[in-house]
């Protein structure tokens, strides 16, 4: 490594412009981060155009205390270290913590959980180390517990490209203090995984492991996890088999919990634009209102009122070429009636969740219950049936675009394009549409089906739909709802709900926490319940995999309020059940819509 030193000399003599003087120092560490700098190889020559390395114990003998920038690796463990660090701080204009030991204390801090004396005894046994300053340790400190640190470069070890980037940046730009220098480089030349509807880009990933924790610890799915180590670390499926050939149920919670967009959905924006632009298509745009409520957070509109914004949105979609814009809630209601009818006529237990992820969970984790999956139409199937019947009579080809709170529908090949709440603004932006330009009064939903447009109290979560299903079943069978409703909470997020009277009995089990599902899915569950419902997302579809990422309960309540204020609440279960049964019967008989 003498080469480096002689190069410093030759470059110094060749150039007269003042250079930044850099010192590189280490405390308790493996010197691996410094090695990254030593490994810069030919790049170091370019670096030496702007800086002069005056101290770098790992590679050179020379040392000077005259430096502008100090890179410091390692943690502080002894009074002598503390003294030396303070001296370096006094000499340096800019002090940079290099790597995880310096930034956080990293593995060195692990020993802080035991007393120092115990640690020394464990390592050095009876050796004579008394009154020796090398062994005079205190609990490990990270750099900023001793001195002010201007910049932090994280990593174990740091990425060498990152060091290079920041030296260049510091020598050519005025630095900002206390900036966390993690971002800004794409040094990891790794390819994105685009094999399934959920895609992963390791270049964007900061390894925060939110996705890992959601998938493994909260949902208990175990589809993805942290893999490899150091710079090679990525989130991956076991043996990199891809999410389709794996336990993944496509709930999309990895995606909505990713703070940097490393996980994203396969985009249907281009496809949707193609469908809208083709004059031979008869395009029906179905809007799931839960997705629209979430999209309010990102839609380019100044309107605060959900109803008005939705009106403008409908009008703008029509201006883009949508022949019809329909409310997906209708198909939810038809499906509620269908399921209620099934339950009233059959003794089998049925998993009534519409969520394709929940169904996928049963198939992958509890195949013994496959026969209990709902056999009647899901809302998507209802949509395809109803729209197919209504709009295929003309010469044009029917194409359906669905705005959904869930990415899993993207796997349904019968729906031509599925957009998430995140993709909707992208579609509008690409087409240059200003939705505020359109009068809300011009935008009303088509395809009314004679259905009540109401909001089921607390719908899209809080077991409101399960309740509606057993109410409908009861209504269907006994034509009244004069039964006692008993809701029992078995444990957090698991509820039992029963309708009981002399006429008959219907009951449901609602599991709001997927990790608890396995505990209840035992042999006798089929004998005990008519309806079992669960969903992977934490507040139901309001935080589905296709919504806008949030962890704020206030924002989720806001979405719920949008729906409630827009549609108004149901007048009562009897009224609501009657309405949807009527509409369903009309649809089954093929009557007029």
């Amino acid at each position, binding site marked *: 490594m003498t080469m480096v030193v002689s190069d410093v000399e030759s470059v110094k003599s060749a150039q007269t412009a003042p250079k930044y003087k850099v010192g590189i120092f280490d405390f308790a560490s493996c010197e691996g981060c410094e090695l990254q700098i030593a*490994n810069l190889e030919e790049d170091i020559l370019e670096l030496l155009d702007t800086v002069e390395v005056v101290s770098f114990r790992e590679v050179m003998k020379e040392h000077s205390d005259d430096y502008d920038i100090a890179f410091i690796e390692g943690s502080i463990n002894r009074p002598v270290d503390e003294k030396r660090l303070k001296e370096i701080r006094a000499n340096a204009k800019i002090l940079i913590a290099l790597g995880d030991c310096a930034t956080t204390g990293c593995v060195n801090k692990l020993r802080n959980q035991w007393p120092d004396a115990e640690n020394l005894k464990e390592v050095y046994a009876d050796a004579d180390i008394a009154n020796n300053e090398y062994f005079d340790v205190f609990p490990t400190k990270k750099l900023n517990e001793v001195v002010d640190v201007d910049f932090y470069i994280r990593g174990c070890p740091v990425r060498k490209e990152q060091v290079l980037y920041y030296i260049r940046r510091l020598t050519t730009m005025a630095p900002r203090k206390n900036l966390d220098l993690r971002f800004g480089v794409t040094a990891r030349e790794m390819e994105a995984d685009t094999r399934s509807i959920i895609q992963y880009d390791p270049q964007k990933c900061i390894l925060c492991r939110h996705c890992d924790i959601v998938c*493994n610890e909260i949902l208990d799915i*175990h589809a993805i996890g942290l*893999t*490899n180590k150091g710079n090679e670390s990525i989130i991956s499926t*076991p*043996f990199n088999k891809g999410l389709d050939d794996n336990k993944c149920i496509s709930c999309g919670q990895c995606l909505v919990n990713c703070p940097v967009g490393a996980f994203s959905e396969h985009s249907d924006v281009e496809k949707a634009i193609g469908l809208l632009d083709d004059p031979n298509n008869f395009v029906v745009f179905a809007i799931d209102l839960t997705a629209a409520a979430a999209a309010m957070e990102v839609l380019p509109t100044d309107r605060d009122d959900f109803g008005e914004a939705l009106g403008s949105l409908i009008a703008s979609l029509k201006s883009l070429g949508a022949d019809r814009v329909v409310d997906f809630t209708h198909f939810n209601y038809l499906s509620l009636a269908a399921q209620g009818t099934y339950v009233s006529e059959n003794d089998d237990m049925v998993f009534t969740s519409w969520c394709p992820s929940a169904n996928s969970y049963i198939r992958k984790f509890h195949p013994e219950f496959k026969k209990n999956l709902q056999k009647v139409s899901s809302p998507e199937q209802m949509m395809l049936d109803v729209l197919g019947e209504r709009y295929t009579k003309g010469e044009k080809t029917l194409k359906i675009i669905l705005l959904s709170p869930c990415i899993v529908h993207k796997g349904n090949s019968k729906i031509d394009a599925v957009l998430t709440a995140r993709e909707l603004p992208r579609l509008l932006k690409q087409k240059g549409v200003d939705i505020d330009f359109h009068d809300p009064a011009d935008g009303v939903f088509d395809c009314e089906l004679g259905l009540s447009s109401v909001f089921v109290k607390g719908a899209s979560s809080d077991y409101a739909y399960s309740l509606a299903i057993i109410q409908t079943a009861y209504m269907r069978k006994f034509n009244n709802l004069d039964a006692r409703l008993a809701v029992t909470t078995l444990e957090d997020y698991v509820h039992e709900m029963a309708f009981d009277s002399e006429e008959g009995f219907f009951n449901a089990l609602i599991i709001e926490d997927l990790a608890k599902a396995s505990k209840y899915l035992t042999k006798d569950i089929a004998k005990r319940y008519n309806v079992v419902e669960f969903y992977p997302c934490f507040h139901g579809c309001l935080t589905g995999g296709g919504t806008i990422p949030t962890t704020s309960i206030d924002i989720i309540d806001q979405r719920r309020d949008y729906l409630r204020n827009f549609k108004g609440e149901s007048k009562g279960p009897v009224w609501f059940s009657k309405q949807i049964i009527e509409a369903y019967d009309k649809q089954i008989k093929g009557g007029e819509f």
Partner: protein
Amino acid sequence: MEAKDKFIIDTILDTYSNIDDPQLVILQNIQEILGYVGEEYLTYVSENSEYSLTELYGVVSFYPQFRFDPPGKHTIKVCSGTACHVRGGSGIAQELEDILEIKPGGTTKDGLFSLESVRCLGCCGLSPVIMIDEETYGRVKKGGLQKILDSYKTEEVAE
């Protein structure tokens, strides 16, 4: 997966059923006895223990000591310690990867060689160093690697 392998893994799981968090020791034992921790072994462990496949795969991919494929007839160890690195060890490793068309931890298609990246082999004066089985080769040059490998192939043919 063969019944014999299942029996071995069952025995390992049983042996360590009483200790706290035996994940690593289970994996080490599988590698020790069966030679590698392949996909089917990990899947079997995940089905018969509290550890999920993602967790096991995460641990196995973290430690260089584990291998996913059966080892080859000859094991090539390339030193990536400081001294060897400074004297061009990474170039040697790259050259071997190119010649054998495998990554460290992998085994060639013909099952003859497997490649491992190791830390210091304790003979820094000979850097850069590679070891094939118990034989040490010092001051190796990129151009000389093919010749060394060929000698093992010739030996194979002679047998």
